């Protein structure tokens, strides 16, 4: 089925095998799936958010379930960019995986250092700037919710790397279109949207937050309508491609995102429900395209 249709999509100058990627923080480093499926068949994977130094992350509990979704406050636990380049990237390269490191820093300078470090590595397809993590004290929302700050990070990273730069939008920006245009004008190659929206859940027995950080980012199907609306708004606010994220769990969801204006999608929480989720979505999308005689690129923005 997959072969019958041209599933390739262009994200700016970068061509992806197909429009189904996996979302940062929900797919580890892409090396955890050998028992489940060949990750190289995907359009790409976004790694867990990488920082310059390794991070242990927040104290537990870090996750809790909500109606049709979940909250997380992982706190960007990650192995650090060095260990990623040494231990993870070579194996991903070997497997032929399209790798998009998601990077996170608390200062513009550190974003630049991360970009420079990864720029030197073979097998990196693009960089995704996480300027929208809601679960850290610094470097999260203050970059992603403010057009000026977002533009500053984008411009600095743009200057520091020849790699395509994707900026991950925060749904909590009051002026989402403004942030998006600021990033576009500073040279972002694509926007990924959206990160989680902060939520809260309280244990009524203990009177404590269900996660230690109290607030955590909402992800999963519950989030989908909001994310889809934002992708639609963004696709009308900027000319660069949008990669849609938020509750994508079925191939039908992927089609909706394409119709709303996304050029590709990322599968997040659905991979927790079934590690093969991204593969199933890809297969379903391919057979839908083949049955309808269309391509993902033709679906993009085709909502009437």
């Amino acid at each position, binding site marked *: 089925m997959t072969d019958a249709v041209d599933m390739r999509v262009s994200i700016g100058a970068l061509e992806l095998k197909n429009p189904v990627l996996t979302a940062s923080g929900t797919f580890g480093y892409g090396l955890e799936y050998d028992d489940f499926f060949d990750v190289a068949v995907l359009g790409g994977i976004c790694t867990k958010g990488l920082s310059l130094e390794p991070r242990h992350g927040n104290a537990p509990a870090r996750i809790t379930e909500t109606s049709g979704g979940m909250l997380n406050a992982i706190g960007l636990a990650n192995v650090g960019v060095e260990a990623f380049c040494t231990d993870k990237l070579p194996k991903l390269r070997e497997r032929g995986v399209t790798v998009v490191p998601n990077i996170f820093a608390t200062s513009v300078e550190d974003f630049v250092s991360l970009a420079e470090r990864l720029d030197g590595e073979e097998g990196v397809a693009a960089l995704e700037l996480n300027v929208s993590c809601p679960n850290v004290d610094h470097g999260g929302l203050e970059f992603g919710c403010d057009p000026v700050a977002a533009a500053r990070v984008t411009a600095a990273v743009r200057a520091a790397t020849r790699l395509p730069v994707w900026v991950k939008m925060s749904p909590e920006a009051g002026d989402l279109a403004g942030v998006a245009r600021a990033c576009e004008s500073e040279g972002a190659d694509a926007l990924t949207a959206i990160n989680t929206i902060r939520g809260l859940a309280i244990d009524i027995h203990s009177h404590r937050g269900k996660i230690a950080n109290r607030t955590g980012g909402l992800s999963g*199907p519950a989030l989908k309508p909001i994310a889809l609306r934002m992708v639609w708004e963004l696709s009308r606010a900027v000319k660069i491609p949008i990669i849609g994220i938020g509750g994508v769990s079925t191939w039908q969801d992927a089609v909706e995102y394409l119709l709303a204006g996304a050029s590709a999608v990322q599968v997040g929480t659905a991979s927790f429900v*079934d590690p093969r989720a991204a593969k199933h979505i890809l297969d379903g999308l391919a057979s839908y395209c083949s049955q309808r005689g269309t391509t993902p690129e033709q679906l993009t923005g085709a909502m009437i």
Partner: protein
Amino acid sequence: MGLTWRPDRAYLTGLAVAGTRKPVSTRAMHTLPLAQRDDLGNGYYVLWFDSPAPVAASAGQFTMVRSAEWGVAPLLPRPMSLLSGGSRPSMLIKVVGEGTRRMAEDPMGQPYNLLAPLGHAWTPLPEGHRPVLVAGGVGVAPLVYLAEELSAAPDALAPISLYGGRTTRDLPLAERLEACGELAVTTEDGSRGRAGRVTLLLDELLAKAAGSGDKLAVYTCGPHGMMRAVAERAEAAGVWCRASLEAPMGCGYGVCLGCPVAKRDGSYFYTCVDGPCVDAKQVDWTKEVF
């Protein structure tokens, strides 16, 4: 039913390379019909599935389980210790919320997704040690599996099981532990066995073993507070101890980083891939799990 400690029986040896952890076996998503459900009363059930492709599990491993029929809520699969593997995987569930309620009510034949086997099994019994299984409530499941594995092993030495529950109705599968060796139970309300907590029995056993010079290997699974008490006593007595951790889980296979348990070195175990069975000494039991 006082504890009888029989120092005359030979210690079990050679079950596997003593003290080392078994390698993680190949994990797969098994979509299996719910084949049987035994109602053990008080919200406890054993669920059985028929698996054409055997689930190559060892005691201590777990599965992430949910039914696609649930739709989007409950969303995440639920971690459950395996009570058995092979072509008839099973689990012991206690109804505490929406997911377990559905498991207790879904009709026979309904397909379930079991991602299994996951995580590290119990570390094999170190040579020359006597297995002591300390269970609390639903934590009994991986210990029953272990007890039955030990029983089935050649030259198997019967484990001593110490099992505590709130009342006599909170001791599911006690008879399966008993069938594998000695069993002593406690209940908080005194409705069965000794009144009090299971650590009471452990204290006695540790004291006896200290007197006799017998080497014990403690395996424990139960509520955090209980495991903490067990681990502290074992450590104080210099006794080998493994615990099966519990934490909320998103994925069960190491990608969400939602299941940390604090380690003494300041970092975290990720329960699903570093555990659930870990060396109790490495856990920072003073930190709350969740």
